[in-house]
């Protein structure tokens, strides 16, 4: 078997031996059942996209928190405990260790988000509420895409960190920047400084608008707009609003490129940092 997949499988099966994970899994299940029940108990007024929409919205938050907190310690923690020395004394390359761990964690988080959304849809359908199959599938896929972004950010952070305290600080940082939307404060601050330390007036320049749209959750939202527009509202709490008109940087293809970059780049940067590091 491929050594990369060996690492992935180890990471995945190892997590399954973790009791804490069951608590987390139960939480996802509970949220899924809750959504399904709510939809089912309002079956007359519900529409087919309600369950996928609420499910995606819940996973955007819960899944991201789970992805960050389950991944940020995965490489640097092994480095601190000495596990990395053992792995790298066996014939694994650092590439295999980093990307294998990334895939393992991703599989785990995606299993949780998928399970949660699927259970919500199933319960709602059993209780007689309408559930759009295509929307449900889209919600599952886009939740997975979002998870890939956050697992990549966290694994990249973990591979690039020297010690676990800094990785933990970085994890809180990811949380603040992306889920509490500090990201959008950046252009405001930059413009404030550029404007001679006073608040600028007038419309935002294009670079500020682009900056807001390359936020990963916004990018995912912009992709969704081209596939299943009814679902975009799920991410309204986590992503900046849309500008007037339809500039290129809110189009689905642009969003897809940005999402792909968010999935590939962070973990790769972390790997490049680790590749030449002395253990």
């Amino acid at each position, binding site marked *: *078997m491929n*050594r990369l997949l*060996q690492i992935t499988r*180890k*990471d995945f099966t*190892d997590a399954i*031996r*973790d009791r804490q994970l069951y608590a987390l899994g139960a939480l996802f299940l509970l949220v899924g059942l809750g959504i399904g029940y709510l939809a089912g108990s309002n079956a007359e007024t519900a529409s087919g996209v309600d369950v996928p929409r609420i499910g995606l919205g819940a996973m955007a938050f819960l899944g991201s928190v789970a992805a960050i907190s389950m991944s940020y310690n995965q490489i640097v923690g*092994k480095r601190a*405990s*000495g*596990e990395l*020395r*053992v*792995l*790298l*004394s*066996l*014939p*694994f*390359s650092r590439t295999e260790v980093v990307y294998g761990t990334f895939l393992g964690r991703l599989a785990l988080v995606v299993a949780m988000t998928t399970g949660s959304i699927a259970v919500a849809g199933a319960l709602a359908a059993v209780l007689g509420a309408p559930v759009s199959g295509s929307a449900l599938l889209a919600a599952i896929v886009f939740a997975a895409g979002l998870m890939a972004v956050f697992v990549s950010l966290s694994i990249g952070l973990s591979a690039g960190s020297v010690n676990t305290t800094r990785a933990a600080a970085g994890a809180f940082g990811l949380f603040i920047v992306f889920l509490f939307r500090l990201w959008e404060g950046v252009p405001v601050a930059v413009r404030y400084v550029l404007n001679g330390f006073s608040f600028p007036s007038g419309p935002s320049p294009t670079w500020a608008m682009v900056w807001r749209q390359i936020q990963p959750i916004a990018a995912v939202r912009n992709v969704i707009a081209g596939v299943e527009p009814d679902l975009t509202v799920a991410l309204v709490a986590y992503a900046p609003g849309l500008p007037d008109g339809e500039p290129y940087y809110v189009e689905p293809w642009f969003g897809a490129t940005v999402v792909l970059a968010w999935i590939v780049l962070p973990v790769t940067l972390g790997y490049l940092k680790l590749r*030449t590091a*002395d*253990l």
Partner: protein
Amino acid sequence: MAAIEISGVSKRFGDVTALQNLDLTVEEGEVFGFLGPNGAGKSTTIDILLDHVRPTVGSAQVFGHDTQAASVPVRERTGVLPEGYGALGRMTGRTHLEFALQAKRAEGDPQAILDRVGIAEAGDRRVEDYSKGMKQRLMLGMALAGDPDLLILDEPTTGLDPNGARRMRQIVQAEADRGTTVFFSSHILEQVEAVCDRVGILNQGELVAVDTIDGLREAAGATGQLHVTMSSIPDGLVETIEQRGGVTSVAVEGTTLAVGCENAAKGAIVADCYEAGTVENVETSETSLEDLFVSYTGGEN
């Protein structure tokens, strides 16, 4: 082809120089003991062989593979018991071994390895719950997985009780008989003396001696020690012994005479004692590897 070939390796961490122009060759099939004070650069040398750290200058080869460019092929043929290791997550001992076998693409029976390192009954327990000695045995087992051509053992007896240390020595012996090259770093000189064909002594990042232990003894011009315990030490006996050829030192500890001398002089000295008074006990010792070590590394005392 040499098993390990290190040429002109230096390594600096910031402004600290860990290794200084190190050249070392370990032949295939030999058991090589790697000694040196704390901080001499032993672990750094091993880390370079495994590509855990990269040399500032110089290069190292293992079985002809460059350790940086071909790190994975190096580690495919090498079994390692690293220092400062940690358990692989929450896996059991058996799954650890299965994992190592799979990584090396080797066939092998985990239970046989567990038996061999003496933790046969602990295979299905989580390694997190192992004692330090059990972990050490498991790590040795993982190093043995896949019958490596080179074994690198960094302080393998740390935390092992005497039974475990003996078993470890037996395993090293058996591996060496099978033709495996063993690179063995340790502070416990009795262990090194018991298993190693040759030793290298590293001091402050430089190799100060490479030889067999007997060779080191001869080179250091070391002599033996003789302890003669008497009911009482008669006047004049110390002077008589000091006159003899081959005697380097005479000290009195209570009613025991401690004499440093060449081996051939021992008989005559004991005869002197016998004639002078009542001898209760006689003990001899050779220069220990410890003394040799201290003389090469300039340790205090």
